């Protein structure tokens, strides 16, 4: 058990556990907080794989901005465990069983995949660094990049339009 393996298992258990807590928690605020934990765990995975830029962006954008948005909305609506709507038992069972089945099937499908000899490079490799990513992004991927800026703009406009109080 090398240090990176230990780290891997720790982060994985953390991510899975907190993800489960997201689903299980009655209180929406708790769900949000658990989700932030999950994102931190996933960012940790990114950093382990030396995808530094993504790791940091994940923290800033997801754990930071997006989750704060969620939190903000939940606070705004004053949601708590009491107001939480509950599905009936059978539908919840069905949902869990369906998710579980999907997990089983996909893991079973993995058994036939040729992945035994494929190794993920940890710690080394510089493709995750800002320099390399930036070069590629502004050369090969410049058009999607620009388009995404337009997307953002339209999303902003759309949000404002939708969010405006209907007079």
């Amino acid at each position, binding site marked *: 058990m090398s240090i990176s393996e230990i780290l891997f298992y720790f982060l994985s258990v953390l991510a899975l556990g907190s993800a489960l807590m997201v689903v299980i928690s009655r209180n929406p605020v708790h769900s949000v907080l658990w989700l932030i934990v999950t994102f931190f765990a996933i960012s940790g995975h990114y950093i382990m794989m030396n995808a530094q830029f993504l790791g940091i962006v994940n923290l800033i954008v997801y754990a930071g901005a997006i989750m704060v948005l969620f939190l903000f909305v939940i606070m705004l609506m004053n949601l708590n465990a009491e107001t939480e709507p509950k*599905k009936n038992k059978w*539908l919840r069972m*069905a*949902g869990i069983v*369906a*998710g579980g*089945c*999907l997990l089983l*099937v*996909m893991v*079973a*499908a993995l058994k*036939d995949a040729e992945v035994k000899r494929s190794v993920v490079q940890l710690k080394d490799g510089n493709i995750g660094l800002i320099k390399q990513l930036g070069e590629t992004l502004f050369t090969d991927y410049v058009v999607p990049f620009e388009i995404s800026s337009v997307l953002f703009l339209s999303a902003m406009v759309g949000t404002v339009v939708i969010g405006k109080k209907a007079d």
Partner: protein
Amino acid sequence: MKNVLQLVWLIPLLPLIGFLINGLLRRQLSKALTGIIGSGVILGSFVISLLIFLQVKQGNTAVVDLFDFISVGKLSIPFSFQVDQLSSLFLLIITGVGFLIHVYSAAYMHEEEGHHFARYFSYLNLFVFSMLLLVLGSNYVIMFIGWEGVGLCSYLLIGYWFKNTDYNNAAKKAFVMNRIGDLGFLLAIFWIINKFGTVAYGDLFEQVAASAKTLDGTAAIVGITLLLFVGATGKSAQIPLYTWLPDAMAGPTPVSALIHAATMVTAGIYMIARSNILYTLAPFTQGIVAIIGLATALFAATIALKQNDIKKVLAYSTVSQLGYMFLGLGVGAYTGAVFHVMTHAFFKALLFLGAGSVIHAMHHEQDIRKMGGLKKYLPITHLTFLLGCIAIAGIPPFSGFFSKDEILAAAYGANKIYWIIGVITAGMTAFYMFRLYATTFLGKFRGEEHLHGHHPHESPAAMTIPLIVLAILSVIGGWVGIPEVLMPNAHSLEHFLDPIFAESGKYVHEFRPAHHLDHTTEYGLMGASVGIAVIAIFYALARFSKRPELGEPAGFGKVLANKWYVDELYNAIIVKPLQWLAKLLNGFVEKDVLDWTVNGIGRIINYSSRQVRLLQSGQVGSYVLLMVLGILAFFVIQFFVKK
């Protein structure tokens, strides 16, 4: 002058043009113009046919290619005409007799309304066009086109007075029965294409002649010839498909003369004569043809003995004479059969036209029991009719004697029993024809004079001139085929047709030595048949001129008068079960089974839609759940089932 053969395409084209003009402008043209156009185009065809005939007589034959008709893979069926001895002879018969009948029709149909009159002529022209295609085609497919065309025109003309349901039924009957035969013909064509890869007469007969030894009597040849013969039985009204012809008398009389006596019904004979080499190689089929022909001849003759409708007698007589021709074909006397077609065309057309003249004079009365004594009112009709009767009865030197005798002599050579039955039939023929003659023209007039207030009167010249021409032809028509016994080298028809039947003849001489009749036998045969005919004639004249049968027939005569109950038999065996089946299909299968199935499918879809609709609950959660299940199913199929 050989280029006249290249004009052969004009022969069928002219009637086609006539058909189009008369058909499309039927409301604009006057009756006189219609008659002139309708007859004129046929006259034009006749003139060209005559020129071509003269060329062919000098030995010039040709296959005139017009255009490519069907080309599929190795099979190529050109639209081409074959001008040779056989087709040129038939051209003369069709256009010649056709022209006379057109002229006659112009007078006979004068009571019709203008556009119906033109409709009649356009059908008649279309018929001539189809018939010319049938005999001119250089392969079986063109023949089949003509074959179907004449069937169609026959239907149209039998049902010409379409307001009468019986006539329509008769037309339908003719059409359906012909279709049964046509199917046989079509199958034969397919079989020929399959076996020989060509339908052109020239190629096909060369192939067959080249491999005659190996083909002799094989199943394929027998099958092809039998199927062709099935086609012939339909078109030429032989047992078992003959019942449409007597019913076909529903049409106007000139139609009966042209289509159902002179031309169309001889298409079967033409076809078999054309395919003579095939038949020569299939002795089994020849036997069948001979037996069917003979049976039909006898059978129809017995029925004709007791018919009281002037046209029905002639119709059964036609069936009987066609039987003779098939007997001739069956015993290998191809020339005799073609000869009989020719003479029969003359005298039967004459008899029908004469009958038409009588009917015309009697104001559409066709029952001979209501006639009698017409001799003094209709002198020309009477005389020509008498000549026709003598000709058909086979009294020398009239045409019928020579052709019938040739067939009978050949039948004697093949099998004595054929000859005996043939002669008995000949006697019956003479008897019923003179019964008809005597009842109609001799004795006292039995019609209702007071009803019309005047006597029957002779028909106009347009009707009598064709009668006279045909009567002359009936008298002298047989002189082209005087047997060797009476006059050496006088059988010019045989010499003329020799190239057509040469292969068959060669083959027969080589493989099946024929019985050569010595002269005494031939004289004996002639004497016997003529003697029987004369006895029958005098008996009939004596029996019917003074006291015609007016009462209802009894005993066996009743069976004959009711045509052996064949129609009733067909009704019981074929029509009734079919109708019952149709009722079953309509009542049970369609309403209960098919409708129930179709509606059931509709109901199932309705029901299942109602059930599936419940899935569209509007609950986002359930949608997502289904989506996941779907993805799950995909994965399962992808990874576990596919192996």
